[in-house]
């Protein structure tokens, strides 16, 4: 059973068997507006927690995506090349960005659970 965590930079990571699937949250896609391009990391690349690993381009602006954990990129969502709008339509499922093999699973302890993230977003408005 996958467990989902959230960052203060509005990324989510769903972890199962040492591999995390990362995307941006529903709140983030709503704030960004229509996504027209996503620049994804290279498969095989090593990233540290907090690295800017991807860029989401909305009609208005470019926004960086920071990796919520350290590890190695093992897969990217190829569907986003042709259909970047998946990020708007399905931010927390089909609009995922990349999968990462976690090198420091304890980093997950610094992230929020769904309830904590919802409260965090509530406090932003």
């Amino acid at each position, binding site marked *: 059973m996958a467990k989902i965590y959230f960052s203060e930079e509005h990324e989510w990571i769903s972890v199962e068997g040492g591999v995390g699937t990362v995307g941006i949250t529903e709140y983030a896609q709503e704030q960004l507006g229509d996504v*027209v391009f996503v620049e994804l990391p290279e498969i095989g690349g090593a990233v540290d927690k907090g690295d800017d690993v991807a860029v989401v381009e909305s*009609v*208005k602006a470019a926004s960086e995506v920071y990796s919520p954990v350290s590890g190695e990129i093992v897969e990217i969502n190829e569907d986003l090349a042709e259909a970047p*709008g998946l990020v708007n339509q399905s931010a927390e499922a089909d609009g995922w960005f990349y999968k990462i093999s976690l090198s420091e699973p304890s980093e997950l302890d610094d992230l929020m659970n769904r309830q904590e993230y919802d409260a965090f977003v509530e406090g932003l408005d």
Partner: protein
Amino acid sequence: MGETHSEALRVTPLDALHRQLGARMVPFAGYAMPVQYEGILAEHAHCREAAALFDVSHMGQATVHHPDGVAAAAAAFEALVPGDLQSLAPGAIRYTLFTNPAGGILDDLMVTNAGDHLFVVVNAACKEADFAHMAANLAGCTLAVLPDRALVALQGPKAAAVLSRFAPEAAEMAFMSARVLDIGGIGVWASRSGYTGEDGYEISVSAAEAETLARRLLAEPEVGPVGLGARDSLRLEAGLCLYGSDIDTATTPVEANLKWTIGKRRRAEGGFPGAEIVLRQLAEGAPRARVGLRLAGRQPARAHTEIVDENGAKIGEITSGGFGPTVQAAIAMAYVDAAHAAPGTRVACMVRGKALDAEVVTMPFAAHRYFKG
């Protein structure tokens, strides 16, 4: 996000309507303005396919009178702009530029021969400076700023059908002409012009009647509200300059590829600020030019992106760039060295360390669909 909101933001007469329509409001040129309602891509498409209603009441409106009549006002105004205003027939509109003594552009504006006076529309961010410039330099003229007028734009292939439902005369108005219309008892000053590349109108209306007019237009099935976000993507596809980005005091009309705005008589006579420099550039060419760029993929290259040639040498910089929803490609306006300005020239845009292939292309990116009669 992260935007500092000033307490002193001004609002337009349509502020309550925007909020009721669920607009996302942002600060722009000192005003709270709607950046989007439903979403920028949907709003952009709506303007290309049906009719879009924009609130552009933040723009500056004014009249210029001269005791000797409109011809004298036009002659006086020509001291500030390179456009031929004296040849404007009653009801005709000219797009022109305020220039400075160095040939730089202070603002772009629309000037209409309104019969017995000139009607002027300038950019929101420049309006105080423009009006001061006009007040100080329009010899013998009386400037009347119109803060109690709202301005809405109705743009798109269905705009004429919608407006002529209320005022049949709207249908036959020539492109770049203006007249009084009666929209169900509301008297407006309507111009057949716009900033989207589509057919449409810019409608000046009293602030008191603006919301009634906007609601009346929005009640028509073809019309939807469109915000500043789509206004920007629409004008970029149409190849139209944004003052402060694509043109400013450091660009001349020749560099900006706005040579067509310099009237034939004005080329011969000069008599506008910076004429010596501008006319010399007209004759000899300018060192750089505003061009259109079409990128190979979807990834946007935005303002201030460096442009390089095939050897990696810097040849220019993007001034406006983004994804063009109608052309379904990343597009940009840029200034490049004259040697690289010809359509078909291959260049690269440096985005976060990567070279994105692009080609110099003729603008507009999306064909203009103005009313041809």
